[in-house]
Every structure is written in C-alpha cells, then in structure tokens.
C-alpha cells in the first residue's frame, strides 16, 4: 500500500491529479489514500514533488 509521510507532504495535490483510479483525496487538512481502490501503479509515488509517498508491502 501507499503510505503518506505527513511530515513531508505539502498538500499540493499533484498525486490526486495523476491517480488513474481516483483513490486519493486531499481534504482541508490531510491526504487520504483509499487502499481498497488503489491498484498499486505507484505513479503517485514517482510524481510527488517532495517524495512524501512510499509503498509498503503489508505485513500479515
């Protein structure tokens, strides 16, 4: 899944614009990634101007 580092994220919305499945939402105060919709294409990770997004394989 894609994880947001809130200490780095500048809430600019570039990731929202490029997400092909609309699973990212930028509210008044945070960035929310809906992991159930996410297709793990990692485009958001590549495009983040501040490298605030990383992917993490979930530990079961």
């Amino acid at each position, binding site marked *: 899944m894609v994880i947001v580092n809130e200490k780095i994220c500048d809430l600019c*919305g*570039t990731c929202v*614009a490029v997400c*092909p499945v609309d699973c990212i939402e*930028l509210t008044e105060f945070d960035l929310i990634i809906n992991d159930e919709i996410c297709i793990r294409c990692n485009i958001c990770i590549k*495009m983040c*101007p501040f490298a605030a997004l990383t992917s993490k394989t979930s530990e079961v």
Partner: protein
Amino acid sequence: MKKHYNIAIVGGGPAGTTAARFATSQGASVVVLERDREIGVPVRCAEGISKEGLTKYVDINPNWIAGTITDFGFISPSGKMVVFHSPTIGYILHRRLFDHALAEIAADMGAEIYTKAYVHGLRRDGSKTTLYLRHIGTETEVEADIVIAADGIESRIAHLAGFNTKLSPKDVEPCAQMQLANIDVNPNRGDFYLSNNWAPGGYVWAFPKGENTANVGLGISGKYAGNKSALEYLKDFVAEKFPKASILTTTAGGVPVAKALDKLVGDGLMVIGDAAHQVNPLTGGGISTAMAAGKMAGSVAASAVKDKDISAKRLSEYQKQWDKTIGKDIKRLYRLKEWAINLTDTDYEDIARSLDGLTPEQVTLVKIFKQAVKKKPSLVIDVLKVFAGF
C-alpha cells in the same frame, strides 16, 4: 450560505473568482467554495505574468505588483547567458494579494465566497446539481443550476462531474519552489536555467521579487520523474548557485502541461483553469489563461441562466470561444513542449552559442526557437505562429 444559487463555483483561484466576477456582473447569484483557510494561500507559483495577459482581465493595482520584468536571461548548462530584451513588459505578482484582490472584486459585485469549504461530492439530477461539502467542519449541501469546476490541477470535482481530467505523467511537471533572500539578482530580469542536470525536461526559474530576493523553483518532466524528486533537484541547484541564500518559503506544486480537454461543458456543468488543463504547456504559465476561461465561462453561464437553458449545447458557447482563441495556441505550444522535453544539454549549448554576440535587443524568441527547432523543421510554423512579435 443559501440552499440554492444560479451558479456554484468549486475553487477560489484566479479561474474561479474571475468566473464569479463575470457571472455576478450579469445578475446571476453566485457562490464560490474554497477548501483552503485563505484565498491565495499557500502560493504555489513563480508569480510571473505578461502585462497583456494581466490587463485584459483586471486593472493593475500597485499593491500586488512585486516587480517589473523587462529582460529574460537564458542560462546554458555551462553557464553561458543569453539575454533577451522583451518587447512586452512582464510583472511579478504577489499572488497572495492578487488572488485576494480578484476575490474581493467578485465579492463587491455580489458573489458569496466561502473558505474552509471543502466540496467532496456532486450529484446531477434533472435540471440541478447538488454539491456536498464540509464548511468549517459542518456537513452541508448546496444546489445550483450550473456548477463550474475550477478546482485546480487536482480536478477531483471536475472528474466527478464527468470531465476527462486525468493527466498522464508525461503531461504533468512536478515542481518545487523556494523564495530565497539575501541573493544577488537583477530585479528586472527573469532567468531560466536550462540543463537536464538541473531540471530534466523542464527548467529552473529565478524570478526576482524586489532587490535581493527571488522565487527560485523548477519543474521536471513527469517523463523523467521517479529517481530524484523535484525538491532534491532544487536543493542541489540552490546549493550550487545560491549557497548563501536564506530560504523564506518551500512549496510543492504540479503543473498540467497537457492538451486542453476535448470537452469543457456538460448539461449544467463547466470546467475551467488548471482543472481543464488550460495552461501554456511550454512555459507552465496558467494565471492569464485561467482568468480568460473564467471570463468566458462566467459570462456564458450567466446568460444561459437568464435564458433558462443550461444545456451542454447552450454552454458550449464557452468552448467555442475557447477553442478558436487560446485553445488553438495551446495545441501548437503542446507540440513544441513534446519536442522540448527531449532537448539535450548539447542542444542547449548549441542554441546559446548560435546567439553569441547578439545584443539583448537583437535576440528574439522567434530567433531562439528557430535555432532550437533546426533539427525539426516541421515545428517552424508553430514557432512563428505563437512567437510572432516576440
């Protein structure tokens, strides 16, 4: 906030507030819903605009002009500078104050503007559209005859409204910018640094904001994004060129450098500004085009409401106006951008060398670009059409 408006606009940037101004001036009831706590903040912008691109849409107020630009400098990878004396004046804005001013003008005419008003849903139903929003923490709804999506590059609401706003990575420039203080800059010259080591597929700008301070930022082509972030590129550039600078702001942003959308209207729906990719794809400039689209869409929306015909057919008057004016230029500029993102550092050096010895008055954008497209002559017409006069 009322329950119903003729026109509800999502987003309080230059596109949204300009649409609000022109719609209210024709008698429509208008609401602007802005997510952030303050109009115009944070500033994710280099703040440059041409005099013409500004004064067509708003009277200049010295309060929000930070400086005047008469020259441009292009710096090659090896540091060679070509100076170009611009025949048209440019301005560096204080975007925070500028965006406020645009909102105030709209408000003075009767538009209602709300901040901390985050729109998260939209439902189109018969002859009206309902927007679902959270306003300072309280869930509420607003109904409108026409919704104008002016929600910037994210364009989530535009997408929910059925517009094809999704951007492919190569059509987006991830950007980072710092406002630097205590640096040596020419207050009347905007500089562009061109090298794939500084900003692959994009450029670095240094736009002065007065004597010893400037907006220094860069965009990289999404085509090359992934290994190193825009911020890392910028940190390296600043360390190399402005090692003593103090850093007053650090912001991120994305610029759509795409073709404008094919479809800009639906029944009771319109999309404008960055959300509609209405940006010069070669330079990334989008303030003026956002205001242009706001003016067209706001005027058409108000007269459509008056005539009680909010069909896509009626609203397409806006699209027609757009397509035959700025839309046409953007197509040409897009072809130039598709070519420009592949320029190598050797190409940049060759261009700089070919203009060596010319005075700033002798250098023109047509000369620069004609030289640059030598290897791709099919683009010469595009160059002549978009830069004639420059």
